[in-house]
């Protein structure tokens, strides 16, 4: 059987079991609503546009935050790959920063920027920057020395060498870095929205929870998961695979 069929069958069974459990009242509708109620929440959320506005708001913040973090991460990555001093100083603190979930910064961010979307975007930026920087550094440091030698014999040096050889050679790491940055930024965004202010998908989740609307809660959770999976598998993993093939990895 093809993997796609296996997957579909798996989801059919899962939802079947969930419906069955709800129908037989193995659990109460209030704490774990049936698939049908979740679907109805989804439909009405689309109809009254709360879900759509939430999605748009979330994606806007993500786009801003992620772009800034990719740019910033790339710059820091290049800096620490190229300067030993920078690596010994900034580089050493980067790993520590990377291991702190960025949502931990929220209290500070709210102090600095207020309870608004600047604070959320700040968290998103922190979520993506460090992992991007670390991957860029790895990419640049692992450029095969033979490429550099060959380029130098063809008259390339300095910025030209970087632009035409070192950077393109590290593209596979740029892609991996972006994929991880997206994943961290997405998680940070949801956490940030959940704990601060709307509109946004995370905020919709909090709002639904405050009103005890568990079917909307589950609906939003599923949307968050599905978007995460789609972006990762359909976009990033595909690019990663193509790049790996082309780069001969």
């Amino acid at each position, binding site marked *: 059987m093809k993997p796609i069929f296996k997957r579909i069958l798996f989801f059919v069974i899962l939802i079947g079991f969930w419906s069955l459990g709800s129908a037989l009242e193995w659990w109460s509708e209030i704490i774990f609503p049936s698939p049908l109620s979740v679907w109805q929440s989804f439909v009405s959320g689309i109809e009254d546009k709360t879900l759509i506005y939430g999605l748009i708001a979330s994606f806007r913040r993500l786009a801003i935050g992620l772009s800034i973090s990719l740019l910033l991460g790339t710059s820091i990555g290049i800096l620490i790959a190229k300067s030993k001093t920078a690596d010994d100083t900034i580089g050493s603190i980067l790993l520590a920063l990377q291991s702190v979930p960025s949502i931990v910064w929220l209290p500070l961010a709210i102090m600095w920027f207020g309870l608004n979307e600047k604070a959320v975007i700040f968290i998103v930026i922190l979520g993506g920057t460090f992992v991007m920087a670390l991957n860029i550094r790895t990419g640049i440091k692992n450029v095969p020395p033979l490429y550099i*030698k060959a380029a*130098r*014999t*063809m*008259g390339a040096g300095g910025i030209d060498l970087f632009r*035409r*050889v070192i950077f393109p050679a590290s*593209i596979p790491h740029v892609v991996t870095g972006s994929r991880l940055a997206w994943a961290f930024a997405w998680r940070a965004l949801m956490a940030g929205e959940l704990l601060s202010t709307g509109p946004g998908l995370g905020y919709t989740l909090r709002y639904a929870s405050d009103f005890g609307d568990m079917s909307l809660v589950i609906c939003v959770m599923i949307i968050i998961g599905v978007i995460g999976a789609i972006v990762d598998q359909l976009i990033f993993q595909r690019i990663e695979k193509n790049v790996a093939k082309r*780069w*001969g990895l």
Partner: protein
Amino acid sequence: MFLTINDLNKQFIDQNDITNTVLQDINLNVEQGEFISILGPSGCGKSTLLSIVAGLTSATSGQINVDGHSISKPGKDRGVVFQEPALFPWLTVKENVIFPLKKEMSKSEAITHAKKYLKMVQLTNYLDHYPHELSGGMQQRVAIARALAMDPTLLLMDEPFGALDEQTRSRLHTQLESIWRDTKKTILFVTHSITESIKLSDRIIVMGTQPGVILTDIKVDIPRPREDHKQEMIEIEEHVMQYLKKEIDKVVSGEL
């Protein structure tokens, strides 16, 4: 004299501050258009010598002149072909070959130029392929075309066919020979195959190891194509072997 190497020495200093003399008192003169093979056991410093001439490695002492200019850094007057093709995998065959030409000519000129050299290595049908879509032998031919495309006066080749199978290698020997005849490049060709060096070169520089020195300089005075002169080739092979045997024994006994 087109290429002169005078009293060249190269030492590496390892972590324990022990000096390792890799090349000692290397002197070599090469005429324009000569095909020179550098032959020697593994570790005798052939690649190091080539890398110094390429300008990628600095010498500890000594002088190198190419066409009247003293060498200290890489330059487009010296094209290098490495043992591995060293093509850039993100560029197509065509883009790889025009890589060194970006600055001095327009894109369309560069492409015309690239095509000319890709024709020499019989790869015009692969202009838009990526390196990973080519066999090892084809990749190496692209690398040769790329080195030739910047029109160097000196072509430095470090065991360019070392990783290829016997048949491919033999075909490339023929191709390289005709390219050399047509372009009149001066070639320094590193190898540890005696047959290869006799088949291709005007002179064979035999190197000894520990430290790397030039043992002898053998003129190969056999008319080309050399396949028709098997007997003379065998005579030279025996002559070279006498020098090499001692060196190879030295390497082997050092390793035991």
